[in-house]
């Protein structure tokens, strides 16, 4: 069995909605039926067969090849299986996904992992604004699982996040962790302005101290955190050597909101 592969033939003249292409929906379909699935977003009808060359037969493991930033909703609602994207992903990557694994070799558009509640997404490149943020029609952002962005993240990363773990390898934009309810974001590099704006609970962990701190975050000083040791050791088991150590400056905030959140700035 080889991964079910969708190779983009050319540049379609409309954005694509690839949400029908997840293992749970493809499992029982014949190749002919898969090619007939509608993925257009305009009045001009477009099917999988029109846009993609389909190969392989293992619907539990999907591969998208040659995709670009207009291929939206890859892995949206994913519950199981694995999706590898050899190219860029459009908006709503892994939107509201509950389980499974998505790996993007390129970058992703807006709202990657929005309101996801389980599973994991890894983006090798940059992610657009509102990654791990609020999906359309939802009141909360990410609710579980793990989102790894190895490049830069756009503004409003993790907006109203409720649970889950986000790790950003590059820089994050303004309002990172804005209005977060709970959960954890680990920033390996810098963040823009207003990080933690409206933070209620949850942890923002910084390797580099943020340049601008909101005045509504209050200092508790530097101390040891066993939590950082646990996190660091777990990250190492997943192959990521972050070097968190065990000491950090703790700031509590946002005191303009509930104020039970924290920034841990690794010392």
């Amino acid at each position: 069995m080889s991964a079910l592969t969708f190779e983009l033939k050319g540049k379609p003249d409309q954005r694509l909605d690839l949400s029908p292409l997840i293992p749970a929906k493809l499992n029982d379909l014949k190749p002919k039926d898969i090619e007939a699935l509608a993925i257009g977003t305009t009045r001009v009808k477009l099917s999988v067969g029109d846009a993609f060359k389909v190969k392989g037969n293992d619907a539990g493991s999907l591969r998208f090849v040659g995709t670009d930033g207009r291929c939206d909703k890859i892995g949206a609602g994913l519950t199981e299986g694995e999706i590898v994207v050899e190219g860029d992903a459009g908006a709503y990557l892994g939107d509201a996904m509950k389980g499974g694994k998505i790996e993007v070799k390129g970058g992703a558009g807006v709202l990657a992992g929005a309101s996801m509640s389980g599973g994991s997404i890894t983006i090798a490149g940059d992610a657009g604004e509102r990654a791990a943020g609020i999906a359309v029609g939802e009141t909360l952002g990410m609710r579980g699982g793990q989102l790894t962005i190895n490049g830069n993240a756009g503004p409003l990363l993790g907006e109203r996040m409720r649970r889950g773990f986000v790790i950003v390898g590059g820089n994050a934009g303004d309002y990172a962790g804005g209005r977060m309810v709970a959960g954890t974001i680990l920033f390996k590099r810098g963040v823009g302005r207003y990080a933690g704006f409206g933070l209620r609970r949850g942890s923002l962990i910084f390797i580099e101290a943020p340049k601008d701190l909101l005045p509504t975050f209050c200092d508790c000083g530097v101390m040891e955190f066993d939590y950082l040791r646990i996190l660091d050791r777990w990250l190492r088991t997943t192959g990521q050597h972050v070097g968190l150590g065990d000491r950090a400056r703790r700031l509590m905030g946002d005191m303009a909101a509930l104020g039970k959140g924290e920034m841990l700035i690794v010392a």
Partner: protein
Amino acid sequence: MPELKLKGVTVVDTFAEAFPMVGTRIIITAPTLEWALIAARTMTGFATSVIAAGAEAGIERTLSADETLDGRPGVAVLIFTMDTNKLQTQLRNRVGQCVLTSPGSACFAGLEGEKKLKLGASLRFFGDGWQMSKRVGGRRFWRIPVMDGEFVCEATTGLTKKAVGGGNLLVLGKSHAAVLAACERAVRVIDDVPEVITPFPGGIVRSGSKVGSKYKGQIASTNDAYCPTLKAAVKTALPLDVEAVLEIVIDGLTKESIAKAMRAGMHAIADGGAEQGITHITAGNYGGNLGPHHFHLKEIIA
């Protein structure tokens, strides 16, 4: 039937009668092994017998820094009771009073299992609203603010209902010193067997009991058949030249681990035992009708 001898010590053809228990394992870590041991010893103090101590608990083994979740030295503790509710209460009270209070400590689950016992999930209330829940790698931890920083405690730990309590060995000898030395040897080797503890003081109990008493309300009383001072008056189990009897009680997460511990213990007792005056190794039972697990000494050393 020929008498079975192990290096000159008679192994009585009998069996240890043991009971099903519920049990769990937790891992305590601390800045140093010494402090992890202090927390563990405190938590497992006064946990010799469910007759009146509420639980039977002990230290299973120590853990090096690279074996624990937070990379600090740790101690694995086993705790057993007769039912799940009692175990939950004992665990909460003992971890709450003895581990939470111990400087620099953290506490983690040490057993997987579908059934769970609350650990941090009940102790978190000590945080008075300042506690934080953190999920790392699918496991949930509570961070509870305390005066030396944070007490990190995993939310739950697994529970086993296949635990066994009351595996035992009785050692008979011609002098108190010889019996004590033999039992010390046995406890030392049993310490190295995984999944078991010896809950009594130093792993050894001198007041073996029988069920019931002549006094109303006394549920257990001295095992007169093994009291050397009563040889003349009761139906004694002791030869005239036996001066002292000591018992090693073993609780374990599985019956296989208890059998292993008893086997190791018997060999350690017999090693040089005969020359020192150890005469018999036997085991305690209630006729076989009370406990479902029977550890026949003959089969164990076979």
